[in-house]
C-alpha cells in the first residue's frame, strides 16, 4: 500500500519542474524601456492587475516606467514618492551635464527605505510578484526595485484554537510582517535571528526560521535548515504543510511538530531553545521539536499557582486517556467483566439498556460516528445556521434517540464525556489523534475485553517511545526520564524551581535565571 503510494509519487516527480523561472536568469535588461516593459508584461502574461506607467523625468526627455501589481503596493507611496517626485523634480536627478543619473535617483531622490538595483529578469519578476515596484529608465541596462509593499489582510485578532483565560490574547495573522513584529516586540534581544528562505517553485513563499542564537542548539538549527532546503515542491501555503514534509515519520497520527497561533508561545518556546518557523500567508507557526508532555501544556498553566496548574494539567492527562479509552472500557466491563462493577451500577446499566436493539459495540460505534458527523458539520456550517447543529445534535440525537430506544442513555453519557475530554486536550492535532485511535481501542475491547485494551495500551506505549520529533524522543522527559526536566511535564513546578532551561533540548545557554530567581520575601 505504502510502496504503491511512493511509486505513484515518484512517477509524477518530473512535472514539478515546469514552473521554473530560473531560465530567466540569462536574460538581462536592455537599455530600451519599451523593450523591457513589453518583455516583462509578456513574461507575466499581461495580467490585468499588473500596472505600467511611463512618464518623462522632470523636464528632461528621458522616459521612465514603473511596473507594479496594484493590489500589493501602497498607491500613495508610488504616486507621491516615486512618480510625483520624478516628474516634478529634475534638479536632483540630473548630473552636471543635465543627463539623468540612475545612482542619483537611487541615492538622493527616492525617499524610501528599501531600494535595490536589479539587472536580470528573474530577480525583477520575483520582485514584482512579491509586491515591489520596478522602476526602469531609458538608457540604463538596470533598474530599481523599490519596496513599497502593502499587503492587505486581517488585523491581529484573538486566538481561535488556543484560547486562554489570562495572558496575551493576540494571534498570528496571514501577514508575515505583522507576525514578525508580534515576535520582535516580545524579545528585544539582538540574538533573536530571523532567517528567510523562499520555498515553492511557483509560490516562492517567504519562510522564516526563528531562533535565539546562543540558546537553540546549533545542530538543531542546521538540521532543520537542511531539511527545509531539501524540500522541492511547487507550492506551499502553510507552515504545517511544510512541517509535514520535514518530519521523520510522515505516517504518524500524532503531531511531531507543534502548531500554534500564539506569538507568546513561540517566544516561550524559543526561550527554551526550540526553533520556530512561520510562513507568509498563513496564520500558523510551527515549533520544533515537540514532545507529548509539551503538547499537554497550555499557556494558562503559567498564569496560575503551580499547585492549581499542576492539578489542571493532571486532569488534562486523565482526559487524554478518557478520550482514548472510555468507550472501550465501558464496552469491555459491561460485556466481558460485569463482575468488576458495583452491583447497583450493573443493575442500573442493565435497566438503561433493556430494549436497546444493538449490542454495546454497535451502539458505541453509532454514537461515535454521530459525534464525528456533528463535529465535522459544526466546522462546515455557516455561522448563521450554526445553531441548528446544537439543536439537532443535542436534542434529536441525545434525547430523541434515547426515548426511541435506539441507544441507551448511559451510552450517551459515555460518548459525551469522551467528546468533552477530547476537547480538554490543548493541542488540536493531538485531540484529533485521540479521536482516531479510539476506534481501534473499541474494536480491541469488543474482541478481547480488558485484555485487548491492555494489549492496545502496550502497543501505544511502544509506539510513543519509538516516535521521534527531530531526534527528540516523544516521551521526554518522562522516558527517557530526566528528573530535573520533569518539573514541567506531568506537573507544572514552581517557576523559581525551573531556573535551568530544559536539558533535553540541549540549549547552549542552560541557565534561565539565578538559582534563587525570585525576589526575597519581606522579612518583618
Amino acid at each position, binding site marked *: 500500500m505504502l510502496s504503491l503510494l511512493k511509486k505513484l509519487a515518484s512517477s509524477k516527480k518530473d512535472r514539478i519542474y515546469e514552473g521554473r523561472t530560473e531560465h530567466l536568469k540569462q536574460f538581462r535588461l536592455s537599455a530600451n524601456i519599451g523593450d523591457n516593459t513589453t518583455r516583462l508584461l509578456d513574461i507575466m502574461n499581461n495580467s490585468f492587475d499588473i500596472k505600467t506607467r511611463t512618464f518623462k523625468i522632470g523636464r528632461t526627455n528621458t522616459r521612465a516606467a514603473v511596473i507594479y501589481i496594484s493590489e500589493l503596493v501602497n498607491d500613495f507611496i508610488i504616486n507621491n514618492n516615486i512618480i510625483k517626485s520624478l516628474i516634478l523634480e529634475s534638479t536632483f536627478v540630473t548630473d552636471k551635464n543635465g543627463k539623468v543619473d540612475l545612482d542619483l535617483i537611487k541615492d538622493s531622490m527616492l525617499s524610501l527605505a528599501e531600494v535595490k538595483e536589479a539587472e536580470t529578469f528573474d530577480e525583477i519578476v520575483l520582485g514584482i510578484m512579491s509586491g515591489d515596484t520596478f522602476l526602469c529608465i531609458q538608457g540604463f541596462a538596470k533598474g530599481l526595485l523599490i519596496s513599497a509593499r502593502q499587503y492587505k489582510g486581517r488585523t491581529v485578532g484573538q486566538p481561535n484554537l488556543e484560547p486562554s483565560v489570562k495572558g496575551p490574547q493576540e494571534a498570528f495573522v496571514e501577514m508575515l510582517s505583522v507576525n514578525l513584529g508580534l515576535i520582535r516586540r516580545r524579545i528585544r534581544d539582538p540574538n533573536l535571528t530571523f532567517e528567510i528562505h523562499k520555498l515553492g517553485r511557483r509560490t516562492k513563499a517567504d519562510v522564516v526560521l526563528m531562533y535565539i542564537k546562543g540558546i537553540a542548539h546549533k545542530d538543531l538549527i542546521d538540521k532543520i535548515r537542511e531539511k527545509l532546503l531539501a524540500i522541492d515542491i511547487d507550492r506551499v501555503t502553510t507552515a504545517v504543510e511544510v512541517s509535514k514534509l520535514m518530519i521523520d515519520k510522515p505516517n504518524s497520527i500524532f503531531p511531531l511538530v507543534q502548531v500554534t497561533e500564539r506569538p507568546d508561545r513561540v517566544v516561550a518556546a524559543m526561550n527554551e531553545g526550540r526553533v520556530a518557523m512561520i510562513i507568509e500567508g498563513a496564520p500558523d507557526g510551527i515549533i520544533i521539536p515537540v514532545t507529548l508532555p509539551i503538547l499537554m501544556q497550555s499557556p494558562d498553566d503559567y498564569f496560575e499557582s503551580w499547585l492549581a496548574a499542576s492539578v489542571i494539567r493532571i486532569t488534562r492527562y486523565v482526559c487524554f486517556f478518557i478520550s482514548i479509552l472510555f468507550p472501550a472500557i465501558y464496552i469491555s466491563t459491561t460485556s*466481558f467483566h460485569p463482575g468488576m462493577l458495583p452491583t447497583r451500577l450493573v443493575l442500573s446499566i442493565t435497566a438503561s439498556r433493556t430494549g436497546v436493539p444493538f449490542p454495546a459495540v454497535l451502539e458505541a460505534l453509532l454514537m461515535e460516528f454521530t459525534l464525528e458527523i456533528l463535529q465535522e458539520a459544526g466546522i462546515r456550517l455557516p455561522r448563521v445556521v450554526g445553531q441548528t447543529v446544537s439543536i439537532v445534535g443535542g436534542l434529536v440525537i441525545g434525547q430523541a434517540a434515547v426515548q426511541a430506544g435506539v441507544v441507551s442513555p448511559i451510552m450517551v453519557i459515555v460518548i459525551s464525556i469522551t467528546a468533552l475530554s477530547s476537547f480538554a486536550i490543548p493541542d488540536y492535532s493531538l485531540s484529533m489523534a485521540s479521536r482516531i485511535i479510539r476506534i481501534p481501542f473499541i474494536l480491541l475491547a469488543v474482541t478481547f475485553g480488558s485484555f485487548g485494551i491492555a494489549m492496545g495500551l502496550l502497543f501505544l506505549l511502544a509506539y510513543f517511545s519509538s516516535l521521534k520529533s527531530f531526534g527528540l524522543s516523544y516521551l521526554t522527559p518522562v522516558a527517557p526520564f530526566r528528573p530535573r526536566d520533569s518539573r514541567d511535564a506531568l506537573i507544572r513546578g514552581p517557576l523559581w524551581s525551573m531556573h535551568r532551561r530544559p536539558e533535553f533540548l540541549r540549549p547552549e545557554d542552560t541557565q534561565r535565571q539565578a538559582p534563587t530567581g525570585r525576589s526575597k520575601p519581606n522579612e518583618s
Partner: protein
Amino acid sequence: MKRLLLVLVILIIPLAGCWDRVDIDMRGYVLGIALDAYPPNPIGQNSSEFEASPEEEEPLERMETHAGKPKYAMTVQLPMVKRAQNASSGQMGGGSEGSSTWEITQIGSSFMCMNREMATRTNLLMYYEHLQVIIISDEIAKQGLEKVMDFFVRDPEMRRRVKIYISKGEAKRILDVIPRIEDYASMYLSLLPLNAKKTSRMATDTDLGEMIINIHSGLDFVLPKVEAIKDEIKSSGGAAIKNGKMVGWLTEIELEAVKLMRNLYRGGVLTIKTPGEEEGLNVLEITKAKSTIKPSVKNNVPHFDIRIKVEGNYAEDVNIHTHGQLDMEYIKKLEKAFKKEIETFCAQTIKRMQEEYGADVLQLKKVLQTKTPAYWKKIADHWDEIYPEASISITADVTVRLLGLET
C-alpha cells in the same frame, strides 16, 4: 515478508470472534440463593413420608437426574430490572405492588445440575459474580454445611465475600420478602451487617470465605440467623456450627457474649438494673471492647482466662433520678455492676455452649493450638470430650467515659 506477518497478526483479531462477550442486559444477575431441603420436612415428621409428593404441582421445578435422588431445592433470585427501575423512577411515586424480582426454584440432586437446568427456564445467562447472599435453611444446616457448599466454593464465578445466613424454617421465604425501602431482599440482607457497629446482636464477618476457612480448619463458629415475615426481615442471634453441622440456635444475648469474648464486638448496648434500687435501669453504650484469652494447663485440664476490657458511654437511665448523683463514686459503683453483668451472661453462655451444644464457638481450640502446641498434640484427638470439661474464668473491666448532657 514482514508485512505479510503483520497482516496475519491483524487477521487473528477477528478470529477471536468476540470471545465470551455477552451484553450486560443479556445476563441474569443472581442476587441471592436460598437452599432448602426437599421434600420440606415439617418439624416432627419423617421426611420419608413425603417421598411421593404430587408431581403435577410443580412440574417445571423438577428435573431428570443421571444419578442421585432429588434432595435439595435451590431458589435463585433474579432482579426484574425494568420493573424495579420503573417503580422507583416511575409516575407519581412508588407504591406499585408486586415483586421486582423473580425467584426460580429448582429441585435436584446436585447444585451444578440445578444451576444448568435453570438455563432451560430463563432466557438470561445466569451470572453469579454479583451474588450477595446465600441463605441456608436450618434443616440443611443440621445435615451438614460442607456437603452442600462445595459447588459454591469451587465455582469460579462465586465470590468469597458472599454473606451466609441460616434461616429459621424455609429459606426461600426470606427471598420472597419485598423490603419496603429496597427492591431486592438479597441486597437488603447484604447491607444489614453494616449496622453491626450499632448493635452486637447480629453476627458479622461471616462470608463464604470465612466459613470455608473455619470448616477446613475444623473450627466451630456462629452463622447469623435470619427470620422473615411478609415484608420484613430480621437478622439477630445465630446458629452454632460444630464440625460443619448446625447444633442449635444462639439467642441474641448469647451472641453478644460470644462476640465479646471472641473479640468481634464492634459496638452495642448493655443494660443493668440500678444497683440498690427496685425499678431503675442503667444503660451503657459500649464503644470499645477488647478480649484476650490466656490458656493454661492444670492437671491435664485446660484452663482459659478470658479478660474483657470494655469502654463505653453512659447512655441512658430509666425510672431513676440520677440528677446530681453521677459523681465518681456512683460511676465506680456502676462500673462494678456492668462488670458483674458481663461476667454473668458470658459465663452462662459458655456453660450452655459447653454442656448443651458442645460447640467451641469461642474457637478455644485455635488458642490452644497456637499458645500451647505441646499440650495440644497430646489431646488433639480428644478435644471434643475435653472441651466441655475445660474451666473458663471471665474477668471484665468496664470504664465509663462520657456521661452525656445530663448529670
